């Protein structure tokens, strides 16, 4: 017989995570359901079942994600609404602030290159390489779109308020430019985006 590779904590987390992904239970609900699964598994183990068997029966008795989601959605109507609003606000913040931040950085970069090399062959080369890198970066982001959306989804699920607040940060980043000493074009760059 092979040694059992069953991991109770991970299995409970998976099962509850699956229910949580349906988007109608809160963190506290998830903790309560997890505690229930642990208690139920323990008592079945005491009756002589293996950990894995006990877990499977405990899940079966708890109910599947459809039943639980349906029942919870009657009491937790606001969970789904909050999620939708969180996505809307985060989406607006990111779509508005990231492109403007990008344009600001590009402007500063061009200006720096121009101040140092003026319109020589070096500056053309640097700008061309920069454009190539930006193109690759865009492709890289496109390739990573799954990871990025999963990351945002997870953040919204586990700590909605934090990710919404964090999404405001890019708006304030240009203010940091004032702090950089000796940046002669700061005022001009800030006035122009």
């Amino acid at each position: 017989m092979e040694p059992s590779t069953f991991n109770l904590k991970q299995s409970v987390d998976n099962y509850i995570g699956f229910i949580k992904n349906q988007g109608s239970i809160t963190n506290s609900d998830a903790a309560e359901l997890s505690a229930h699964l642990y208690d139920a598994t323990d008592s079945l183990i005491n009756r002589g079942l293996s950990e894995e068997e006990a877990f499977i029966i405990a899940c079966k008795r708890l109910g599947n994600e459809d039943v639980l989601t349906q029942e919870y959605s009657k009491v937790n109507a606001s969970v789904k609404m909050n999620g939708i609003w969180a996505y809307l606000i985060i989406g607006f913040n990111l779509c508005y602030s990231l492109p403007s931040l990008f344009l600001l950085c590009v402007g500063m970069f061009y200006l720096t290159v121009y101040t140092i090399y003026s319109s020589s062959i070096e500056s053309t080369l640097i700008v061309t390489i920069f454009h190539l890198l930006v193109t690759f970066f865009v492709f890289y982001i496109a390739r990573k779109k799954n990871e990025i959306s999963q990351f945002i989804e997870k953040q919204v699920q586990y700590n909605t308020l934090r990710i919404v607040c964090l999404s405001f940060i890019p708006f304030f980043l240009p203010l940091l430019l004032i702090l950089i000493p000796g940046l002669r074009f700061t005022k001009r760059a800030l006035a122009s985006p």
Partner: protein
Amino acid sequence: MASSLAPLVLIILRRQESYGYQIIQELREKSGGQMAVAEGTLYPVLKKMEAKKWVEGVWKKADSGRERRYYKLTSNGTQELEQQYSQLNFVSQLIHKLWNLPLSTSSNL
């Protein structure tokens, strides 16, 4: 099934504060294993009762280090339970009386 759970849960909580798994165990035991309900659906019921201020939930750490949410009946809950209890009793007695009426035969008509 979920709606009929509420008075049962209130009756259990009337005796002592308890957490979800213990409540389910008690229902299972007292019904002789006949209580066929997805156990997880108890929690939305508890949550609804908490929103109505019939019960009060508090997270407590057990000796095993495991956290459980304990529920106890509030004074509102006690009132609600008394009302539901007398209502259910009334309905149950009525059902009993009606059930025991003799079946009509054609000769009675």
